[in-house]
């Protein structure tokens, strides 16, 4: 494979699609040209640069057809579960049952970006008293009201406690609007006291045994609600099978990240990597297809790495990215500025770690839930970020902030200080609104300055 890999515009994707079809492209039932999503209102695609591979096409089409998939599942008799404020635990349980489909309503926070605010979701949230002092995840509230982006779930779960205050408030507003929620509580992860029985969690954190036991009991309550909904028992055997499948997704992502972040020439754009990583937490409503999508992407990356093909200049500065962005365009911006993503912590790095398969399934899931970076201290999170940034050879770090989001309002300073002190590399903190066009020059300046500084810093 000697064809150069490129990032191309949507317009160029039209021609590329014709080329791929002429070359015998085989697509799943959700396939098709990307431009059709613009007709559905996904206007932001027109401003993005996307990878030009068939694997990336499949990834984008998979992402942008989730609503169709959910509605088809409902029409086919499946029960639908909305797993709010859950980064990779309850979906694993839900997908362990037959004819149950889980999705992540919070994912609606990207709709104002992808549809360039034409869907009016934020305005609906405003009208319900959830204004722009809240995280953009308030778009979810609008999506529940207008029912245009996902079907209303048969069961809604939501974690509460040491999680995002904004989302808790929004979910409570949702319940007040007549959508009952099965709440489960997650405590703030703390270090065990001296002599206290402790558990080493995935992701190198440690928590008191009593916290793990508490979370396990909370999850058992969720499991009972799921079993009631499905009319099936959620026993250990089913859960173990569900965990094995989730781990397959996680291992594929682990290999993809390892290859993409460490290759001499960057083999896959940051944007596609971000979307691929998101599959770890919600499977885009189809775990088996997630595996197929990731296998295709991994195959493409393996081919590119073997051929030494990259989508960016070899001298691109290696940047570790913290927190997801509200506007996907900013991932392009970093690459336009001369950077490449070589490591990420999008607030769900625990969902990229394999779920322990040598423990009782509910114990393993409880441990994973407690390993969530958002339920511990920023210092814990900083430790993992520094370790991963060092492992991937980062030359600079971007800490992205989500306007109004309570979980990252103050954390950036702690994370930035830790990176500066432990790694001695430049850090920049940026705030990215759902549509960043008006602040693009300011964002571009910060990212370009980071790249220039990293180049000077390393005397490249």
């Amino acid at each position, binding site marked *: 494979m000697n064809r150069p890999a490129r990032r191309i515009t949507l317009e160029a994707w039209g021609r590329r699609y014709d080329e791929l079809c002429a070359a015998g492209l085989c697509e799943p039932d959700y396939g098709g040209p990307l431009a059709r999503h613009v007709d559905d209102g996904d206007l932001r695609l027109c401003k993005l640069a996307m990878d030009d591979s068939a694997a990336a096409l499949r990834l984008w089409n998979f992402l942008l057809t989730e609503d169709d998939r959910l509605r088809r599942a409902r029409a086919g008799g499946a029960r639908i579960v909305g797993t709010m404020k859950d980064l990779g635990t309850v979906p694993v349980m839900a997908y362990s049952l037959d004819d149950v489909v889980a999705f992540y309503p919070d994912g609606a926070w990207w709709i104002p970006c992808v549809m360039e605010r034409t869907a009016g979701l934020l305005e609906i949230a405003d009208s319900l008293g959830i204004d722009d002092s809240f995280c953009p995840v308030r778009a979810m509230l609008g999506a529940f009201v207008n029912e245009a982006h996902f079907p209303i779930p048969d069961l809604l779960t939501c974690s509460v406690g040491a999680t995002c205050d904004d989302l808790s408030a929004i979910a409570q507003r949702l319940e007040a609007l007549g959508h009952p929620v099965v709440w489960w509580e997650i405590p703030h992860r703390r270090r065990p006291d001296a002599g206290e029985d402790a558990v080493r969690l995935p992701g190198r954190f440690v928590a008191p045994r009593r916290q793990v036991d508490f979370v396990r009991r909370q999850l058992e309550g969720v499991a009972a609600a799921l079993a009631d909904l499905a009319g099936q028992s959620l026993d250990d055997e089913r859960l173990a099978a569900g965990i094995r499948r989730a781990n397959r997704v996680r291992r594929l992502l682990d290999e993809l990240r390892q290859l993409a972040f460490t290759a001499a020439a960057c083999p896959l754009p940051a944007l596609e990597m971000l979307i691929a990583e998101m599959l770890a937490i919600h499977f885009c409503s189809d775990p088996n297809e997630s595996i197929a999508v990731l296998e295709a992407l991994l195959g493409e990356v393996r081919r590119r790495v073997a051929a030494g093909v990259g989508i960016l200049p070899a001298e691109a500065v290696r940047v570790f990215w913290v927190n997801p962005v509200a506007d996907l365009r900013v991932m392009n911006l970093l690459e336009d500025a001369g950077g490449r993503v070589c490591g990420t912590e999008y607030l769900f790095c625990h969902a990229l770690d394999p779920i322990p398969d040598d423990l009782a399934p509910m114990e393993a899931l409880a441990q994973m839930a407690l390993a969530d970076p958002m339920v511990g201290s920023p210092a814990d999170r900083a430790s993992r970020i520094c370790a991963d940034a060092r492992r991937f050879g980062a030359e600079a770090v971007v800490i992205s902030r989500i306007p109004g989001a309570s979980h990252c309002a103050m954390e950036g*300073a702690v994370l930035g*200080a830790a990176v*500066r002190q432990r790694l001695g590399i*430049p*850090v*920049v*903190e940026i*705030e990215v609104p759902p549509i960043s066009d008006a*602040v693009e*020059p*300011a964002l571009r*300046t*910060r990212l*370009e*300055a980071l790249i*220039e*500084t990293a180049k*000077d*810093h390393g005397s490249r």
Partner: protein
Amino acid sequence: MICAGIDAGSRTIKVVLLDAGNSRVLASGIADQGIEQNDLALGLLGRLLDEQGLRRGDLRRVVATGYGRKLIDAADERITEITCHGRGVRHLLPETRSVVDIGGQDSKILRLNGDGNVADFVMNDRCAAGTGRFLEVVATRLGVRLSLLGELASRSRRPAAISSMCVVFAETEIIGLLASGTSPEDIAAGVQRAIASRVASMAGASLATPIAFTGGVALVPGMDRALESALGKPVAIAPDPQTTGALGAALLAAQRRPESR
């Protein structure tokens, strides 16, 4: 060989002409920013060249910096104001380890390493909090010219407490303070103190000395003292603080290989 640096800032455009052979500044100028940024920059550049008896063809290389750098057609290269300010300060005050730059629409702090290169930086949020624009709004509200704001503040006996750094909210606060009888002198001093305090908070716990102060706000009398007080460290205003970025751009232009034009 002549090089030029153009700093297309949010409020003003600055141009520096440099003799690349000896890094001597031949001329510098400042013009108000406007919608046609490229035309304004070219006009200023042309005027400075004329004054020196030079032509465009005499320019070996041009580097543009600042908010509007992408719009400057004459530029051979575009480099951010972070790098350019660092380079300019390194030239003017080589011992400097930290730079506080407060411009029209943003403020930034640069940490320089032992070689004088930028090791790290922080910038304010995307709003105009604690910037020159903020001072302009305050001056307008107090009915004085911006250039006289510092003098007004120097007559303060008890600087007012300004709690908001948002331009819009602060204006409301100022209206309230005026209505409650607080003197314009105390309000002006309170605003200076608030800006300095915000910069100090942005700087974090440690800011290595010597510290240089650049940007148009450095020209406001008393701002350096307010900054020193907030940082608890001495602050030196860079020579011609408004043109430091343009100077850095010109120096970087001179540093590049001639064949790359």
